C-alpha cells in the first residue's frame, strides 16, 4: 500500500471507513487516560492548581504548528506530484488547525489571568501564535473566496509553503521584538526541568491530541470528498437539464419548420 494507491478517492473512502472507528476508540481511551493522569498530577508549589491548564494548553500549541506542517506536505503533494487527495487534505486541515490555534490562545489567556494578572500579554509566544492564527484565517478566507476547488488549491498551496518558510522568520523576529521591549519576561517556565509527575501526563495528552487530529482530519477529508461529489453531481444535473431543454426547443423548432413546409 503506497501513497499512490490512495489516489483513488473511492479506495480512500473505503479504507478510511475501516480505520476511523479504531482511531476514534484509541483517541477516546488515550484522552481518558491523559485527563485522569493530569487530574491526579500534583499542584505546582507556585502556580497551584492552575498548572493543570498546561495539559490542555501545550498539546494545542504543539498541534497548531504540527497542522501547518501537515498542510505544507500536502501542498507539496498538490504542486509537485499533483496528488488528487493532497488538496483535499490541505483544505480539510486548515479549519482544524485554526481551532487548535484558537484553543491554544484561549487556554493561554485563561492561564495568564491568574498568573500574570491579565488576559493578554504581548508575550513573544502568545504574539507569534496569534500571527499563526491570523495566517490560518487568511488561508481559510482564500479557500472560501474561490469557487473552483482545484484553482483555489494551487493558490492555497503556494501560500501555505510561503507561510511555512516565513513562520520561523516571524517567530524569530517576534522573539527579538519582545526581548527589546520587555527585558524581564513575566513568564518563567520550568523549561526542560519538568518533573516526571507532569511530564508523563503531558506526553500522553500530546499523543492523544495528535490522534484526535488524525481522526478529525480523516473524517473532514471524507466529508470534503463527498461534498465535491455532490457538487459535481449537481453540476452534471444542471448541465443535463440545460441540455435537454435546449434539445427540446430545437426539436420543437424543427417540427415547426416541418409543419411550415
Amino acid at each position, binding site marked *: 500500500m503506497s501513497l499512490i494507491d490512495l489516489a483513488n478517492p473511492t479506495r480512500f473512502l473505503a479504507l478510511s471507513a475501516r480505520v476511523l472507528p479504531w482511531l476514534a476508540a484509541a483517541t477516546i481511551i488515550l484522552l481518558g487516560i491523559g485527563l485522569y493522569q493530569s487530574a491526579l498530577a500534583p499542584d505546582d508549589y507556585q502556580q497551584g492548581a492552575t498548572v493543570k491548564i498546561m495539559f490542555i494548553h501545550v498539546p494545542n500549541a504543539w498541534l497548531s504548528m504540527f497542522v501547518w506542517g501537515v498542510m505544507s506536505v500536502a501542498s507539496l503533494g498538490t*504542486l509537485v506530484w499533483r496528488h488528487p487527495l493532497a488538496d483535499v487534505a490541505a483544505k480539510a486541515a486548515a479549519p482544524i488547525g485554526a481551532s487548535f490555534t484558537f484553543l491554544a490562545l484561549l487556554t493561554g489567556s485563561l492561564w495568564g489571568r491568574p498568573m500574570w494578572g491579565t488576559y493578554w500579554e504581548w508575550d513573544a509566544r502568545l504574539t507569534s501564535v496569534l500571527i499563526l492564527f*491570523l495566517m490560518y484565517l*487568511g488561508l481559510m478566507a482564500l479557500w472560501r473566496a474561490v469557487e473552483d476547488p482545484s484553482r483555489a488549491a494551487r493558490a492555497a498551496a*503556494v501560500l501555505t*509553503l510561503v507561510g511555512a518558510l516565513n513562520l520561523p*522568520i516571524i517567530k524569530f523576529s517576534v522573539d527579538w521584538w519582545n526581548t527589546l521591549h520587555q527585558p524581564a519576561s513575566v513568564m518563567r517556565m520550568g523549561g526542560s526541568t519538568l518533573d516526571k509527575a507532569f511530564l508523563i501526563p503531558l506526553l500522553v495528552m500530546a499523543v492523544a491530541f495528535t490522534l484526535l487530529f488524525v481522526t478529525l482530519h480523516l473524517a473532514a477529508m471524507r466529508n470534503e470528498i463527498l461534498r465535491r461529489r455532490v457538487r459535481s453531481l449537481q453540476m452534471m444535473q444542471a448541465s443535463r437539464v440545460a441540455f435537454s431543454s435546449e434539445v427540446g426547443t430545437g426539436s420543437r423548432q424543427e417540427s415547426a419548420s416541418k409543419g411550415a413546409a
Partner: protein
Amino acid sequence: MTALSALIRRDIRIALRVGGGALIGVLFFLTVVVLMPFAVGPDLALLSRLGPAILWLGALLASLLTLDRLFMADHEDGSLDLITMSRTPLELACAAKALAHWLAAGLPLIVATPVLGLLLNLDMVATGAVALTLLAGTPALTFTGMIGAALAVTLHRGGLLMAVLVLPLSIPVLIFGVAASQAAITGPLSFGAPFSILCALSLVSLVIGPFAAAASLKHGLD
C-alpha cells in the same frame, strides 16, 4: 538581458504615465501621515516619538495598496500571457516586474519621507534613519507583496483578501525597520544589528518572492 531591461523600462513608463497610478501611493502615504495627528492629538513631542512607527506603517500600507496593479493591468490586456510564454524564465520576469514596481512606486515614498518627517517633528538624524531603513526595507515589502499580487491575479480577487494574506508576512520587516530607526534615534541598541537583519530580510524575499509568484502564475493561469 535586453528583454528584462526592456520589461523594466516599459513597466516604469506605464506606471508613471496617465492611468499608471504609481504616484497615488505617495498621495496615500501623505494622507495617512496627515490623518495621524487627528487620531493621537497635535502633541509634537508625542508625534516625534511615534514618528518612525507612523512613517513605517504609512509606507507599508501605501506599498501594499499599489501592488494590486503589479500583474492585474498586464493580465487585462493580455501581455501577461506573452510574458509567461516568452523564453525568459518567468521567475526572472517576475523579479524584473517587481524591481520596476519598486522603482516607480517604492522610491517616491522614500523621497517623500523627509517632507513627511517635518510634519511629524522629526529632526535630521531621525528622518535620515527612517529614510535609510525604508530604502533597505521596502524591497522586501514589494517582493513579498508580489506573491499576494500573483495570487490575486490568478484568483480574480484583489483588495482585502490580498491585504489579509500579505500583511502577516510583512511583520518581520515592520519590526526590524522600526527597531533600526528607533535605535538610530534614541539608542540604546546599536543601529547595525537590526539594520543588517532588515537587509537580510530584503535579500531573502528577493529570492523567495519571484519563485513563489512565478509558481502561482504558472499553476494558476489558464
